[in-house]
């Protein structure tokens, strides 16, 4: 079943106001920034965003006024420090009040994993002794065998996971490589998955290496082909990290007016991903293309 769509239609169809959306699941790489920009353009409201460390993606969507709540372990700008919009929302309710379900990387991953496993919780030994572990999505439990005390982490089920991947076929079967963060857990925890990918490949490419298939197509609702769809975050083998973009964002988003200008320039002022790439310009894109000769060596599935 062909699920290939354009970004505008996919975001319009797959996200309703008030949904819980996991995105930016591989930590600092494979962040579906283009999809986040389209969420902002479509002025989605009251979203709950879920990811451990989403780099500046959550800060952008919070600043644009689309977010009611974040379920996260860290919100900011990884290379530069604080996230100014996150701070303004938390400290002053600008542009609106924001709730946070506080996690560590491990407990957030376990919450998603619980949902992916079809369970209401998973136990862990982490975060006991942390002040945020007193929040109601944690509970102390006893091991029924050893009697030791453990922390139960409540399941986190996104309505949608938006994942940027290296390559997928038209049915949504996706090959992903590099660090996964919680990408796999999010794919199986969410009610459905919206994929953006740097490359659409033949089904036969997927079948050549079933151990590389991270997302089976039956989980996927839409596949969107977006070269540089993770910009400014990196996609191993396809695009480098655009470090300057993060530092510029940090500087320009320091004050609300600066953020508004940034938003107007990079998101609201461009119609779609192609115009965004045109704004970056061919030279900058060229500089972001990886070089080298580092390819995985083949393995045999002969029989």
């Amino acid at each position, binding site marked *: 079943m062909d699920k290939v769509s354009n970004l505008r239609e996919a975001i319009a169809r797959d996200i309703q106001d008030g949904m819980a959306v996991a995105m930016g699941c*591989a*930590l*600092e*790489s494979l962040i579906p920034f283009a999809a986040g920009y389209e969420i902002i353009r479509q002025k989605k409201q009251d979203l709950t965003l879920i990811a*451990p*460390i989403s780099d500046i993606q959550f800060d952008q969507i919070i600043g644009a006024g689309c977010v009611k709540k974040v379920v*996260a*372990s*860290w*919100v*900011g700008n*990884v*290379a530069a420090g*604080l*996230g100014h919009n*996150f*701070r303004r929302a*938390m*400290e002053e309710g600008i542009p609106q009040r924001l709730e*946070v379900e*506080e*996690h*560590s*990387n*491990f*407990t957030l*991953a*376990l919450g998603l*994993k619980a949902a992916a496993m079809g369970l209401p919780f998973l136990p*862990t*030994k*982490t*975060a*006991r*002794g*942390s*002040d*945020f572990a007193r929040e109601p999505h944690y509970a102390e439990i006893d091991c029924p065998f050893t009697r*030791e*005390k453990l922390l139960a982490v409540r399941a986190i089920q996104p309505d949608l996971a938006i994942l940027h991947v290296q390559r997928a076929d038209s049915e949504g079967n996706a090959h992903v*490589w*590099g*660090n*996964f*963060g*919680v*990408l*796999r*857990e999010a794919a199986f925890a969410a009610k459905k998955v919206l994929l953006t990918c740097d490359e659409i490949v033949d089904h036969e490419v997927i079948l050549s290496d079933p151990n590389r298939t991270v997302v089976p197509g039956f989980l996927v609702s839409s596949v969107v082909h977006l070269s540089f769809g993770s910009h400014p*975050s*990196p996609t*191993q*083998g396809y695009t*480098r*990290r655009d*470090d300057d973009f*993060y530092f510029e964002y940090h500087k320009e988003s320091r004050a609300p007016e600066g953020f508004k200008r940034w938003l107007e320039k990079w998101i609201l002022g461009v119609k779609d991903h192609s115009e965004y790439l045109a704004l970056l310009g061919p030279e900058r894109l060229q500089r972001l293309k*990886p070089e*080298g000769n*580092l390819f995985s060596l083949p393995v045999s599935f002969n029989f």
Partner: protein
Amino acid sequence: MEYTRKELMVVAAAREIREGEKVFVGMRLPLLGFAVAKELHAPNAVGIFENGVIRDWPALQSIFTISDPPNLARALYCGGIVDVMNLLQAGRVDLGFIGGAEVDRYGNLNTHWVVENGHRVRLPGSGGAADIATLAGRCIIIMNHERRRFLPRVHFITSPGYGEGAEWRTENGLPGGGPSRVITSLGIFSFDAQSREVVLASHHPGVTVEEIRRETGWPLRISPGLNETAPPSREELAVVRKYDPKRVWTS
């Protein structure tokens, strides 16, 4: 030989990594410290990153995040958060590096919110720091030494050290060993074996004990064996500069 305080901190971090250890590395100074240890005294150390990457040699190119492509290329293992956190939880990780906006006399760290001029400032949160603090065999805390950051009691415990001191970790069922060192811009600190309070073990060259006391928000204990931090050797400095040629992290 001239060196910066940050170079000294990198070298101090490197010296904490023992041969063959599995180390949760993190970014910036500890990442450089891992490279120094690998090249000099701990060639079989293994670096673990919370995004799911395990490396047995440092990335040769400068990176801004642990998920930057040079940190993935020719890694030993690429998986997810749960994979590497399981190693931590199963007690297989010897050492982890963490930092914070505030630290207190029992090595508790805060990266959630602080108070500045009576105004509450929201910080990014835990990331993986609470996990490392709870579960690693031992932790090294690295941070700038400023009085507003060194408090008798942190405003919020993100990453637990020794809690309220003494047997608090055991009583609260925290499996990891807790912080073993604090490496700051002024000195190196250990923890008293009984009370678990921070103790000044060495001051960096050119720093006085008085200066350290002034920048510490509680009456600081001084080790009877207090000495001066050994400066970086020529070899150590050469490796630091090989991995941070533009002085992004160490100037």
